[in-house]
């Protein structure tokens, strides 16, 4: 019993370090999907899909997108028309680096029903 008690601080530190490591991992992957609801509901962005394809944080942050999630939504020109001119997502989604924004709409546009499903089952009810 005493031996077990002596082990306790050790286990505690192990758990704490594990937690810290997990948090670092979460930061690295941006922590879950980002869902944009403006100008149309809803568009999903997932760090886990984009990272590890010769991109690092500096590829997008802070030049194309501000580091705060969802901040770009407030901008007036966060539209498909601006993407066509190579802004925001259009920087890579031009048909050469990644698929063109004129194709595969539903890869990102998950729709109202997709957003509801995501809120219910994956993000947790707010």
């Amino acid at each position, binding site marked *: 019993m005493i031996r077990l008690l002596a082990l306790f601080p050790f286990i505690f530190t192990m758990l704490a370090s594990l937690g810290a490591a997990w948090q670092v991992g979460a930061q690295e992957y941006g922590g879950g999907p980002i869902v944009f609801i403006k100008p*149309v509901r809803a568009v999903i962005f997932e760090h886990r*899909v984009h990272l590890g394809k010769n991109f690092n944080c500096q590829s997008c942050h802070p030049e194309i997108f501000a580091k705060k999630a969802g901040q770009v939504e407030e901008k007036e020109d966060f539209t498909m028309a601006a993407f066509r001119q190579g802004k925001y997502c259009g920087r890579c989604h031009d048909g050469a680096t990644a698929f063109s924004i004129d194709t595969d709409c539903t*890869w990102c546009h998950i729709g109202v029903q*997709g957003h509801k499903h995501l809120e219910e089952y994956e993000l947790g009810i707010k």
Partner: protein
Amino acid sequence: MKSTFSDRVGTFNNGEKITREERRRFLCLGLKITGVLLGGSLLSLVPVEKAQSELLGASVIGTFPYQPHYAMLIYNDRCIDCERCLDACAQTNNVPSYGYRITILNRKKNIATATKMIREFLPVICNQCNRPPCVRVCPTKATFKDKTNGIVLINESLCIGCKACMTACPYNARYYDRNSESVDKCDFCFRRRLQNGVPKPACVEVCPADAMLFGDLSDQNGDLYRKLHAPQQTILVLRPESGSMPNVFYLSGLHGGSRMGIPE
């Protein structure tokens, strides 16, 4: 020949000497008249091939009997389920919260190249069928096909709310409106917009992805007519087996060979 005729008469009169061939011929005649051999439809006295083609509406495919003949082409892979059409429709036609004139069906789809699941959307509205099953079943003739433009309309004052048309509709495009105590459905915004000279339904106007194309099929130089009759593409309709001959067509840009080609 003469003798056989008198023989037959004789056999019928006696009622005992009917040969097997005679009986078989007689039964065959009866079956033919009642239509058992003619594809099962009762009392069909027409040849089988014609009866089937009539059932599927093949004799009228490619003809557009109304003037103007309103129809819609939906690029179903452009739909992103933003549901702006639903909002615009509800606003234009006073659709209650429990009702719907547009349904957007969705399903999940696996992509072979990625581990990601994506969705596929399919907007469904009233197909304004050329042979509408709802009109056929209506006991009071409250729902009818407009004689000039072919839009299926509802006379609210005649509707008794029996919901037979809701059951008959292959597209589930009708709902019961508790306020007007009648069934309501999409009419291509005829009462609220087309009638008053507005060229497009509300849903078509607000769609940000140009997923819907509305037009007049009787106009052979029209955009819709040319898009529908362009070669090398597959135009689909929903539930063709119901024989209702819908006027809403679906074109899948991605799988039709060419990419979407959304205008700049």
